């Protein structure tokens, strides 16, 4: 059981290290999916998806670097 729990924990940790990064990325993907459903030009939504994800990554890394250790 202990080994299975460790394995499950390691699997989750594969995708989520900093919870706010994962949550922000998922919310942005959901917002872009909604924009496509609402009929916004797909090309622009694609650009917004990529730029937004890169911005989320940079902001998160900068915030982590500013944190007092």
């Amino acid at each position, binding site marked *: 059981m202990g080994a299975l729990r460790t394995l499950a924990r390691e699997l989750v940790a594969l995708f989520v290290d*900093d919870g706010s990064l*994962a949550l922000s990325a998922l919310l942005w*993907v959901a917002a872009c999916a909604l924009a496509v459903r609402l009929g916004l030009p*797909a*090309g622009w939504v694609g650009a917004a*998806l990529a730029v937004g994800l890169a911005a989320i990554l*940079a902001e998160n890394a900068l915030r982590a*670097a*500013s944190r*007092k250790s």
Partner: protein
Amino acid sequence: MMLTLHAAPVMTAAFLASLVEFVEALTVVLAVGSVRGWRPALTGTALGLATLGALVAVLGPALTRIPLEAVQLAVGVLLLLFGLRWLRKAILRAAGVIPLHDEAAAFAGETAVMRSYGRVRDRAWDAVAIGTSFKIVMLEGIEVVFIVIAVGAAGGLLLPASLGALAALVLVILLGVALHRPLARIPENALKFAVGVLLSAFGAFWVGEGIGIDWPGADWVLLALVAGFLAVALAAVPLCRGRRALAVAAD
């Protein structure tokens, strides 16, 4: 042309990402083997590889039965989270915010743990050694299986992804057998940086396809996504270094 455009980065991403994981597994197996004996270390490794092989044999065909759009979105989201996580860590390591991964230190630590279990009572069935080797091969191996599925499944390129991972496995085994010590000189962070960029770009691409985005330039947009994530990540490194210096100075 389109197939090559996808297959080459897929194979490269799978090779580089798997290389990092196999190097980490090798460090632990070497530590187990050098302290507790090679027979149980290799038995645990073989058991781990056999279990992983069975997992792939079951999961691989099952994936082909799921509708492509669902696979693209699900795999894209996982790939994106995985890639962003690696890239964030690589940026912070390159900026000196978190320490670099040190295989030599990991080997020394694992060797000390193996010694703390005392002398080997049963050389034929050393549960500590077999269990430790099995666990590390399973943990790192599952990451490799996921990487192969993630980079290969959505585009129907499981074969090049598997070949990339297999090439990494063979390379690490050969280096391990030849050197008998951890591969501390492999630039793990640079590899993670590169793989993080590739996985993030692929993740964004497949998520986009999954939610119905019609990418301008079709598959060629992948190159733009790779360039974009690389540029942002490279720019973030000095900025993070500066922010860290300010935070330390304020302490």
